[in-house]
């Protein structure tokens, strides 16, 4: 089930809100939330609910045992078993066929491929499960003695299928002890509407233009159209994913949870490392804390550690070479950036130039991300350099772009903190009027998005597939 659907907005959300708020007591509310979360995940793929529940049970048992034993060696063994069981499932459903085709391509072993349909959001909930067992091992979090509460943490519907990756240690206490409030409800629903608006009003239009340019019109496409198409995809992926994160954070707030921010105006970054501090923060911090630092961080094999982390980051996004190339591309850029800094060259010190250069690199990297077909990716790169195609827009491309030309400056502004700063200037302090205005805006966006969803044939959630 996706948030921007008739069934979610018209049935699931109201029912879950009613069920949650009429149920008295913390336990009761958690049970309601768990039931709705399982139903949410089961919608369309019921069999995976059982696998998720089984995997959570394995993690629950491993963590309980780790908590009980004192020997370090045994603890490490239990942790390894937990990590292997989580990653094995991820490997089988997400990477097996890719691995087999790569092996068969190099040394033809004739390994069979299987038709395995990847369950949505598996990368997100597997990583959440990993944070639990690792945090318990490190004693950063207490062991959860109630299996159903652990299942609730893993399956919580606001962030289940497209993140943010919530660490167990961040909401450990909130599962048993949190407070819902009118303020949280109003703020949370407003935040939800912002995310919904980002998705329906911006991401879908941007995605539509990107698809028309980069798919339907790719043969004979001009250099300008590739750049604009990839730029629109850059907009789509930001509004799509940050919109989903906004909706997740908003719904979390409604139910009394406090999720960490996942985006911080990433396209305003003045360096590549700054970009990754602002983009998909929960994933970059996961890799920093659970892979990069344990590998030795910047103390030993610094460059190798960076490349390992970015190889894995790319691979996390999908079982395809383009994602690996995309990840390694960022790994190399980060190394180059560090080396340049060491010799006194720092692009972030040149404000506008730094921002523009980083943005151009980000947009190009989105071409690597977009084209799953390797040949097409190479071709797009040539086209972007003006090799082998026209430079200026043709009439078919103009038709697609001019139709929604207005949206480009609007989206660009929406990617910056300008509107937030303007709002904070207008409403210098929080008053009754700001709350009422927020609620009115929620109503307008909610109804408008519902109307548009009915008429939109293009309504994908990009991060679902990860």
């Amino acid at each position, binding site marked *: 089930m996706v948030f921007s659907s008739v069934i979610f907005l018209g049935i699931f959300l109201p029912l879950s*809100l009613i069920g949650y708020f009429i149920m008295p007591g913390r336990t009761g509310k958690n049970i309601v939330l768990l039931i709705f979360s399982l139903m949410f995940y089961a919608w369309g793929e019921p069999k995976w609910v059982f696998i998720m529940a089984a995997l959570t049970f394995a993690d629950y048992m491993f963590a309980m045992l780790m908590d009980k034993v004192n020997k370090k060696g045994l603890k490490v063994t239990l942790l390894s078993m937990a990590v292997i069981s989580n990653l094995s499932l991820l490997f089988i459903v997400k990477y097996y066929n890719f691995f087999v085709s790569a092996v068969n391509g190099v040394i033809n072993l004739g390994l069979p491929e299987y038709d395995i349909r990847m369950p949505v959001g598996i990368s997100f909930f597997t990583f959440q499960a990993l944070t639990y067992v690792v945090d318990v091992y490190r004693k950063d979090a207490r062991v959860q003695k109630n299996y159903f509460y652990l299942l609730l943490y893993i399956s919580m519907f606001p962030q289940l299928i497209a993140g943010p990756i919530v660490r167990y240690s961040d909401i450990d206490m909130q599962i048993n002890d949190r407070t819902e409030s009118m303020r949280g409800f109003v703020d949370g629903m407003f935040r939800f509407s912002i995310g919904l608006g980002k998705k329906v009003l911006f991401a879908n239009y941007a995605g539509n233009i990107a698809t028309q340019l980069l798919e339907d019109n790719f043969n004979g496409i001009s250099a300008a159209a590739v750049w604009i198409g990839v730029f629109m995809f850059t907009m789509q992926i930001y509004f799509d994913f940050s919109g989903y994160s906004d909706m997740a954070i908003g719904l979390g707030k409604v139910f009394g949870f406090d999720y960490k921010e996942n985006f911080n105006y990433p396209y305003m970054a003045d360096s590549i490392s700054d970009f990754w501090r602002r983009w998909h923060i929960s994933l970059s911090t996961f890799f920093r804390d659970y892979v990069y630092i344990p590998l030795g961080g910047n103390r030993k094999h610094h460059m190798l550690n960076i490349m390992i982390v970015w190889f894995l980051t790319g691979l996390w996004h999908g079982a395809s070479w383009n994602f690996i190339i995309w990840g390694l591309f960022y790994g190399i850029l980060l190394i180059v950036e560090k080396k340049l800094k060491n010799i006194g060259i720092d692009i972030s010190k040149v404000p506008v130039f730094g921002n523009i250069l980083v943005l151009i690199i980000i947009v190009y990297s989105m071409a690597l991300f977009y084209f799953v077909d390797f040949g097409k990716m190479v071709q797009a790169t040539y086209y972007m350099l003006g090799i082998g195609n026209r430079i200026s827009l043709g009439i*078919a491309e103009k*038709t697609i772009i001019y139709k929604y030309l207005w949206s480009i400056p609007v989206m660009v502004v929406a990617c910056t903190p300008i509107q937030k700063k303007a709002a904070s200037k207008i409403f210098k302090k929080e008053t009754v009027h700001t709350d009422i205005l927020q609620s009115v805006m929620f109503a307008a966006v909610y109804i408008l998005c519902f109307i548009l969803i009915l008429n939109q044939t293009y309504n994908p959630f990009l991060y679902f597939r990860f």
Partner: protein
Amino acid sequence: MQKKHYLLCAALIIIPICTVTFFTVYAFWDKCEKSSKENRYLAKCPEYNAEAWFDGKYEAGLEAFLNDHVYRRDDVIDAAANFETLLKKKQAVQMTKSTRERKDIGTDALILEDRILALYINNDDITNELIKTCRKLYDIIPEKLEKYIMISPTRIEFEEEEYKQYSDSQGDVIFKIYAGMPKDVKAIDSYLLMKSAVGTFGTDRLYFRTDHHWTELGASFGANALLSAMGKNLVNPLMYEEVNQGSFYGYLAVMHNTNSDEMLPDEFIYYKNAEDIYEDAYGVEGADISQCIHEKLVEPSRAGYYTFVERSYQYVVVEGKTKGGGNLLMINDSYGNALVPWIAEQYENIIMVDPRCFTGGKKKLLDIVKEYKVDSFIINLAGLIPGSTFAGDMEKLCK
């Protein structure tokens, strides 16, 4: 912050949620089965069973059902369309690609304020493939038959230069195909006849503005080219009474979603002669084709004009008025269908084979030749077809 203010805010949030819930839940009481606006049947509420649930089919079906049966759905969609119109910047000339998967019609189109022009994009490989396939097809046809080929140009060929620049020349391709045919195949030049007719009548009378076909008047010139080549009498459409059957938005308008207030619909005009030019017409799938001629051609539910027969059949047999007038086997597309009202009178039988649907292969084709004592054979296509899958479809007739 006072509690009552929060209650007001909560109410402002809850009211739209309840409204959306009402609009959605209404679906379970909605009795509507089809949408005349979208020309389709609405999704039915799926029956629940464990297997469908586990497959995800039940859930997908229920979502489709809810989407289709929202309270006042047509109005909601109109509101969404109006909102999107507000956002869209209007352009004098637009070029689009169809979002639908129809390969037998040129999918690139130029959308102007008053008409849509299907563009012709030449592809030498496809043209050469068509030549090869036509030759193969003529090879399997018995030698004693008179063999013809006629490829007619589409509207874009006769448009102003400023629009023609987006399309390749069909004339060059047509004559290239003719030059590639075996010596015993006579090429029928409808191109020059159409060109001169456009000079006399104007493009709008010979071709539709919102559809990719020629009009009945336009088809009469194609028919005359064919009749002249086959030594038959020419027809004069101006001798017949014009009947306006009504207005319609053609396939191109529907395909490119422009059948709104932006563009006037086409008028379907036919000529009274066609009512009694043949004795009977029947499709091999048992449909009564005679019911589909003229009176039923323009129907809002059919998304445009389908030229003579209501849809594509494997083959259609038209019994003409002239015993001993000869039996003509046509391998044709819908352009060829439109010729029939003008030529059927002078033949004993016309058998129209649509290679896109024909599944009988070579054997069945030769059976038809035998059964109907065919003495003339023609491949009769529209000029834009060389850019499509037609060659591949014809290949199946040779196997």
